[in-house]
């Protein structure tokens, strides 16, 4: 009887071990097969309507300037990119569009297939204040989260310089038809105001103001060498104007 019990325990142990080994071999084979076909998304497509589509090219493909299929649009702000090695990218930021005109945004990942063609994966529609999509393969993951920000008509941009007694020194009015403008701030200015005038959907004017100390644009640590302003033009078309600030005669104008 004892022999029989020993025999049975032995047989069970052998069977369990064999089972475990089979599962392990199966999983390893599966992993190595999947690793061979890891794909990284080329870009994220943000579609407002058939004629209004923005793209965000992922960091993995950002460097390939020669063969770019899309370029990242200018309608993002406060973009934070968190890269972990080559295997993970987390992007958060704001996406600006006319929320009175478009109620929803369709987001999807774009991939390049073996024939160098674009493949679109699983479009998702978002109608609240935020969109989040993610993609995961075996050893790679990507996450893209955007908060939606409404855009109104941009009526004017003024750059107002103040002297050390806080008196107005100079006003520069920005040409809204030019997509990129260099703005030179006088050496005598203590600080300057970026004064943006918008018109809301009820026709009411409002101002968005930003006061900048001149020291913040001096030298190589210029925090305002790229300052995008997003708004609708008089034809209700979304536009982005990039202001590039530097100190006059500093020789560092971009």
């Amino acid at each position, binding site marked *: 009887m004892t022999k*029989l019990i020993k025999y049975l325990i032995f047989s069970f142990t052998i069977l369990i071990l064999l089972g475990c080994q089979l599962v392990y071999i199966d999983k390893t084979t599966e992993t190595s097969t999947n690793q061979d076909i890891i794909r990284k998304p080329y870009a994220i497509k943000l579609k407002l309507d058939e004629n209004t589509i923005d793209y965000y090219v992922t960091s993995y493909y950002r460097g390939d300037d020669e063969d770019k299929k899309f370029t990242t649009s200018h309608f993002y702000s406060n973009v934070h990119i968190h890269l972990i090695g080559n295997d993970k990218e987390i992007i958060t930021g704001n996406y600006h569009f006319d929320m009175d005109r478009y109620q929803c945004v369709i987001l999807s990942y774009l991939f390049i297939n073996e024939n160098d063609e674009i493949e679109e994966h699983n479009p998702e529609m978002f109608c609240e204040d935020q969109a989040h999509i993610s993609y995961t393969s075996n050893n790679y993951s990507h996450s893209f989260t955007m908060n939606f920000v409404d855009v109104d008509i941009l009526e004017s941009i003024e750059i107002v310089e103040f002297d050390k007694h806080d008196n107005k020194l100079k006003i520069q009015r920005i040409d809204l038809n030019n997509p990129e403008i260099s703005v030179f701030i006088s050496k005598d200015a203590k600080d300057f105001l970026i*004064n943006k005038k918008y018109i809301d959907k009820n026709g009411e004017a409002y101002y968005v103001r930003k006061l900048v100390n001149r020291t913040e644009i001096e030298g190589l640590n210029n925090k305002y060498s790229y300052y995008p302003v997003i708004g609708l033009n008089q034809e209700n078309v979304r536009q982005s104007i990039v202001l590039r600030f530097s100190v006059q005669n500093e020789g560092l104008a971009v």
Partner: protein
Amino acid sequence: MKRVYLVLIVFVTLFFISSCELVSSTTEKTTTENKTIEYVGVKISILDNFINDPLVDYYYIDGEKGLYIYDVSVKEYQDDSGAQVIEHEINYHLTPKYNCFYITTLIRENGDLKELDSSTATCTDFMAKFSHSIGYGYKDSKVNEKIIFKVNFSFMPNFISYEVIEYDQSHNKLVSKTITLDNISDEYIIQQDTAYCKIIYQYLEGEVSQSDVKIIDHKDIINGYTERFYTLTENDERAFYIIQFKVEPTNS
């Protein structure tokens, strides 16, 4: 002999089934237990060097907060593990007398408000800045979320003055006025044709003079803008002043 085989096989099978059930029920219990806990806020305690009689303020995630919590920001982001994190960053002042602190998490468990765990009490030298964080992950298998309470401690400044400079729509300076503790009042009246004003807040951080500048729009003031200034008193006690900004009334 066959019967013995059968009996043994039945016993072994029963053993496996019961152990599987045990594992499964334990997991479910943990999940259920975690689901009932809700992190609702944080209690901030500051103490003197003798670690007695703490001064206490509360911060609740629904926005309710103590008077000496001078600034709060809430950030949402994804961390390295892919979890959705909500971080509540709370700014709080110590004083030379009350220079020790600890924070305690507040939870609601089955409807009852309770204190969870506290950080250890830390004392700091004058002018040092400290941060204490407590973070929790919701362990529900379906929800990958975390909540973090980060409390930044710095020393209460010494208020010197605030200056209000009013500008019209063409950016001409209309008037400027400097307010010190000698002429401070609980309201500040701006002119009707003021489009915006600069508020320059000057204070001492230790021995070092500092200033912060804000731009406030006419519309903000119409909507009931208030400013709050914190300061140490002569006896090293805490104090604050709330200034209500208003537009001067029309003559008619």
